[in-house]
């Protein structure tokens, strides 16, 4: 029941019983708060009447379940001169480290997801959501293979009349660089370090799909269930994935520079090479 605040700059991370929130004051009267959560979509198994199952090619969710932390969630907070970071273990298969760097306005979230349990025979497609009170009117923006950010409107296409059969999958887009949304007072941008799926299915909300583990093949050509494993001497288990996404809150129109410059840096990481030297025999 302890509330904890992390971050010494413009961006604050607030931890409470309700979970993690990011908060940024854009002016004295304009504070934007984004709440982070995890959930999974239940992959469709297909039915007699409608045999199409969710699989490697086909994303066909059959409901969504929130992922709440199991029992007493452990939170480790490390504060230092360069950055503060918070280690969170939501359950035995989801954990994350959130970092706030000194002098930077964004949060870095390093997620670790897996092995996704499938003992219950349910296909799971794990997502993380950022929820705000922004009034986005069904509009959000996603990159086009790393190039221009293109306007997306929920349940709408500019060049044909869209019949919505899949309200979730029909609004999902590939995210290679990032996704953002804005209203009259603020803009929330999310950049990724790998290709993921993403959408904004409710106003003021952004979600990313981080990992999937299926129980059925979608019969679209692979002929094998999407169920990646790692095999150790004592048996095989589901794949664990580890990646990062970055979140920044700006005034409207001010996030573009960050998305371009920081996005370039994400995809051109500093390269480290190591060697040894004798004492101060400087090479």
């Amino acid at each position, binding site marked *: 029941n302890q509330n904890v605040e992390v971050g010494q700059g413009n961006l604050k991370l607030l931890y409470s019983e309700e979970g993690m929130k990011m908060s940024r004051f854009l002016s004295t009267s304009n504070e934007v708060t984004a709440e982070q959560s995890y959930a999974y979509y239940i992959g469709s198994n297909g039915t007699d009447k409608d045999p199409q199952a969710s699989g490697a090619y086909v994303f066909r969710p059959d409901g969504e379940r929130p992922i709440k932390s199991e029992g007493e969630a452990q939170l480790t907070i490390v504060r230092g001169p*360069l950055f503060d970071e918070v280690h969170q273990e939501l359950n035995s298969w989801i954990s994350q480290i959130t970092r706030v760097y000194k002098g930077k306005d964004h949060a870095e979230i390093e997620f670790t997801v897996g092995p996704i349990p499938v003992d219950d025979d349910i296909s799971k497609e794990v997502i993380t959501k950022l929820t705000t009170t922004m009034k986005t009117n069904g509009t959000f923006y996603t990159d086009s293979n790393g190039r221009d950010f293109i306007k997306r409107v929920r349940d709408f296409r500019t060049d044909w009349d869209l019949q919505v059969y899949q309200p979730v999958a029909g609004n999902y887009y590939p995210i290679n660089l990032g996704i953002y949304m804005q209203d009259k007072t603020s803009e929330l941008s999310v950049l990724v370090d790998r290709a993921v799926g993403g959408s904004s299915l409710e106003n003021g909300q952004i979600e990313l799909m981080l990992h999937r583990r299926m129980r059925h093949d979608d019969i679209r050509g692979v002929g094998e269930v999407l169920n990646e494993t790692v095999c150790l001497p004592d048996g095989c288990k589901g794949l664990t994935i580890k990646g990062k996404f970055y979140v920044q809150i700006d005034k409207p129109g001010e996030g573009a520079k960050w998305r371009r410059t920081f996005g370039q840096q994400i995809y051109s990481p500093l*390269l480290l090479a190591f060697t040894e030297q004798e004492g101060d025999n400087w090479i």
Partner: protein
Amino acid sequence: TTDLLADALAIAQHHDAVSGTQRQHVAADYALRLSIGYLQAEKVVASSLSFLSAAKSSTEKKNPGTKFQQCPLLNISYCPASEARLSSGKSLVVVVYNSIGWKREEVVRVPVSSENVIVKDSSGKEVVSQLLPLSDITLRIRNEYVKAYLGKSPRDTAKHVLAFTASVPPLGFTTYVISDTGRTARGPSSSYVTSGST
């Protein structure tokens, strides 16, 4: 080098290389080929850095050509080059290369086995660094994957991650030296654990 570019292009042709729309044995084959490509690229980079660092020191003592190692598994905090306990009198040199055409100041992280380490820049001035604990889950994943893919347990167990800010010029590199002071200069950054139904 020509093989490297041809192979990279060939691998990039099919979405199966990254999308999950492939059988497990195909995914494993792509992983193998990407790994082979990375090893080839690593050799090119190592020889380039060796050449550049030798050129830099040509006015001083002749450098016979330094061997550089990389750590492709830094994402799971596994880096034998930085984790190995430094033998007496030796320091670890980290070359940080920036492939972008503007100056960058970024925090880099390397796993280390000692907590008594300091970082100096190329002028010998100590730079601010931060020592962080490796979480239990990171250690578990790291040990599992190293065992699964390299067929061995990590020889040197890193207990900490050393972080410092690297300042790197456009399309260039900066060197930093990590040395073990041999004395307990400081502990890890202040940390505390809190439990609750958060």
